[in-house]
């Protein structure tokens, strides 16, 4: 079955939901990629997203892996274009318009209004992910630990995610 058209549709749609960050699209991504199209399981989605946090560059590159699983190299390319194309075009058009809108009083209103909504969407995405990622004391402790360290110290988050891997091995390896 050719999955390319479905991949393009799903990821072009998801890209428009990433207001504030990739996590904002996570609840919808779970529904579409896991429940509707069954390209991967929920734990796999969580794992790919989390591993993607250690990769350099834009932090949603895990979508490439979903595209590859569902449609090989063409699937990966289709997903990339679908996910980054529409928002890139929008940013490009806005870049041209923005200067002209400088005096438009609603510009500030839109920015101030979208700020709390985008934060809420990130938080909602985070809760969706936590339902699959946090179970029991060890995982809760790792999440809270990372949060507190990041709030307190200037440390590279990728290192903490890596430390999470080590703690995961220590906590969950069968003896």
């Amino acid at each position, binding site marked *: 079955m050719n999955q390319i058209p479905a991949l393009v549709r799903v990821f072009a749609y998801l*890209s*428009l939901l*990433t207001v504030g*960050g*990739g996590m904002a699209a996570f609840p*919808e991504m779970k529904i579409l990629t896991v429940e509707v199209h069954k390209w991967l399981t929920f734990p796999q989605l969580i794992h790919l*997203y*989390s*591993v993607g*946090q250690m*990769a*350099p*560059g834009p*932090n*949603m590159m895990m*979508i*490439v892996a979903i595209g*590859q*699983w569902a449609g090989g190299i063409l699937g*990966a390319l289709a997903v990339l274009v679908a996910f980054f194309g529409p*928002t890139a075009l*929008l940013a*490009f058009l806005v*870049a041209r318009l*923005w200067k002209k809108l400088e005096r438009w*009083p*609603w510009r500030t*209103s*839109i920015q*101030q*209004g*979208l*700020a*709390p*909504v*985008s*934060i*809420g*969407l*990130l*938080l909602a995405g*985070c*809760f969706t992910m936590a339902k699959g990622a*946090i179970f029991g004391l*060890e*995982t809760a402790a*790792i999440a809270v630990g*990372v*949060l507190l360290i*990041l*709030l307190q110290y200037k440390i*590279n*988050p990728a*290192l*903490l995610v890596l430390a*999470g*891997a080590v703690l*995961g*091995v220590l*906590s969950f390896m069968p003896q």
Partner: protein
Amino acid sequence: MSDVANPALGAAVSAGPVVAQASIGQIFLEFLIIGATSFGGVVPYLRGSLVTKRHWVNDKEFVEMLSISQSLPGLNATNMAVLVGEKLHGALGSLAAIFGICLPGAVLMYIVGIFYRIHGDHIWITAALKGVAAAAVGLILSTVVGLSKKSLAGKFDFIFIALTVIAVNRLHQSVPRTLIGVGLLAILFHRPRNKRKESVAQ
């Protein structure tokens, strides 16, 4: 260092960007380097490269572009690439920048995806991934806290955050419906108040 050697250049740096234009190749290469080295979040690397090293944008422009990137759909990293690329070299500049910043991570995650598919159920790897996923949850929460400190305009905004979370997680509303519904409410709440009379008077 070269800035110190040339006082005229140093003065220009503080006033604004010295180089308003860059070749497509330069743009691609610079963003490729950012894309390959920006572990743990792109924004500090963008600033270090575009503002401090290249002087392609000044600090004020950078902050403004970042706030545009944040209010638009799309990732900060790619939106910033498009905005800076556009400023330096128009549409081709945008294309070069977004290709550059995406390429290394995309190739890496392509390989990781194949590897994970084959070895993902190895006990070592599942154990490690449980820890990685938990750490990622903590990381996202810290992003939420950081953004709240930086970009909220008042206490009332916490109500809009709560409404958004309840709509998505409890009432199972779709993200676009929530975005439009709560978004409109929040924009109306932050509507321009005193300037409105001016526009009526015009």
